[in-house]
């Protein structure tokens, strides 16, 4: 008998719609444990390791943002480095005026979110190809504008002040915790956003944009939100970048390589899944650590792998896992529980 017939015949009280399956409780507990463990690191590991982890956190944050934009809102931006740079320069600006860079971090993130609004006004009507190039031009333009300010170091950049009182050990630890905090908040933010009503719209757009539009869903608002959130996230990552590098150079913070790294990590890990960026970042870090003495090779291989994955394994590495095991660490979909206990996913959402 089909589900519909059963529903008609059997008492409907026995059917329940839930947000998640059994495993989410485990995931929640697991995530808390992992975060706690990670937070403890500065006490037990060498600063070399925490530095590498800071880099990983930056890429993970960026990848989560790019995933949100491209995987859920259909916005392929190749100019996110604009926000990375803006975040870094916000921190520099406030540090030059006496604020602690760490205190400037949240301000930088919010500032980037605010700037994202007029930028969205410029970009919102553009279709994919135009949108992509426009983001690239915007990023290049923003960099050129910032380079005009000699107070910010012009084209050569300048060191980041405000760390004088901190010992190197404390500095490393604080930088690490700031990076960890940004990443945790970014991923939590993405998760909560996708679980919300707006998230449902985003998942609909991910699956079929035309259908989403014609069903009256608030597609425009969803995309605006995503763009602003991504701006905030990338800005925060840029702020962490500035702090971790102790200097801000335009060519480094506005480098399109940031977009390359976040895009490749997302694609390889799995576009349109929350778990994907985690896997992609792991792959990136492995490649980067193994090949770092070979200069540009890690980006070449990373890029080739990303292209291959995009062409042949559309849902990335996580997609392959998910297809086999039907696991969802960060459930955002809805499940229909039938009386005989199996939660059957009502639709391929989340």
């Amino acid at each position, binding site marked *: 008998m089909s589900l519909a017939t059963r529903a008609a015949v059997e008492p409907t009280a026995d059917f329940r719609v839930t947000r998640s399956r059994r495993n989410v409780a485990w995931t929640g507990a697991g995530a808390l444990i992992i975060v706690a463990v990670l937070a403890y690191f500065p006490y037990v590991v060498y600063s070399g390791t925490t530095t590498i982890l800071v880099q990983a956190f930056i890429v993970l944050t960026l990848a989560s943002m790019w995933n949100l934009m491209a995987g859920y809102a259909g916005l392929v931006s190749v100019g996110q480095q604009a926000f990375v740079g803006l975040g870094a320069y916000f921190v520099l600006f406030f540090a030059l005026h006496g604020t602690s860079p760490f205190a400037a971090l949240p301000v930088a993130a919010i500032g980037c979110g605010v700037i994202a609004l007029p930028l969205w006004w410029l970009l919102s*009507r553009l279709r994919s190809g135009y949108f992509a190039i426009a983001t690239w031009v915007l990023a290049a333009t923003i960099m050129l504008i910032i380079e005009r300010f000699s107070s910010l170091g012009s084209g050569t950049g300048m060191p980041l002040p405000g760390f004088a009182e901190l010992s190197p050990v404390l500095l490393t630890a604080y930088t690490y915790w700031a990076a960890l905090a940004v990443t945790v908040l970014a991923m939590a933010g993405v998760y909560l956003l996708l679980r919300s009503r707006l998230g449902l719209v985003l998942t609909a757009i991910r699956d079929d944009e035309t259908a989403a539009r014609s069903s009256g869903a608030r597609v425009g608002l969803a995309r605006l939100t995503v763009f602003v959130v991504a701006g905030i996230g990338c800005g925060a990552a840029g702020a962490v970048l500035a702090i971790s590098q102790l200097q801000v150079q335009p060519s480094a913070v506005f480098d399109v390589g940031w977009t390359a790294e976040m895009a490749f990590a997302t694609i390889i890990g799995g576009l349109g899944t929350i778990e994907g960026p985690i896997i992609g970042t792991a792959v990136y870090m492995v490649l980067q650590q193994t090949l770092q003495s070979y200069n540009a090779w890690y980006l070449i291989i990373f*890029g080739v792998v990303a292209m291959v994955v995009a062409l042949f394994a559309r849902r990335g590495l996580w997609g392959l896992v998910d297809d086999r095991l039907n696991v969802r660490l960060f459930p955002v979909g809805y499940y229909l529980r039938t009386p005989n206990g199996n939660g059957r996913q009502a639709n391929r959402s989340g």
Partner: protein
Amino acid sequence: MAWVNAIIQGVLTGGLYALFACGLSLMFGVMKVVNLAHGDLAVVAGYLAVFVITVLHVPTLWSFVIVVPVMALGGYGLQRTVIQRALDRGVLTTLMVTFGLSVVIENFLLQFFTANTRGIGANLALVQDSFSLGSQIQVAYLLVVIFAVAVVVLLGLQYFLSASKYGRLIRAVADDKEAAQLAGADYRHVFGIAAALALGTVALAGIAYGMYSTLDPTAGTDTILLFAFAAVVIGGLGSLWGTLVGGIVLGVAQQIGAQINISDEVLAGYIVFLAVLVLRPQGLTSRRSQA
């Protein structure tokens, strides 16, 4: 007088930009592909010319005889293998794959040619010399030649598209590829031809750029792609001559910007580009009302 000079320089540079842009316009018009690796492919052609000249000892001005067909063939291959597959998956995948291609090419060039710049034909009189118009205006021979080449290329493309069998097929497939299939045309092959044409022009653009300026691994995206796209957007999509108009407007805007402040040359161009995107995304010469 400096302003007149600026305008003349700008107009002539427009020819170079049109050469950058016509391949991009062709691929977008026919296949709806924004090839983010477009500029990098031009740089590849430039480096290929450097190789042909320095290693194979081909005279500089004849390098294009080898490089253009090689790039055109490469374009056909790239289209039939990578880009077609990406197109079958969707617009977003195509953007991601061409972006990946761009990054891979740039880093590849960085690995093998280092970040040092290379020039083409720096020792040639053609490249170095200029002539005078009146007492205050210097016009480089090279720019005039490049402008002339751009016009010839555009004329050639226009003639090909309007009068030849494959030109007709390309336009038909661009209009409705399913209906073209029903008429017996394999659109994948037609796309390949269009890509071959596009990359042939890209090769010329890369060589011209190597002569006019210098080649470095990131020139593809820093300069060529963005300028090419700017020229296409300003001039209007779907119009070959629009790319010339767009190129000229871009060139003039840049030169005027440079007059105001020497370091604002590139910035001025970007601002004009963004302005056109916002106000009139279909460009200056396009007849359509929606991008």
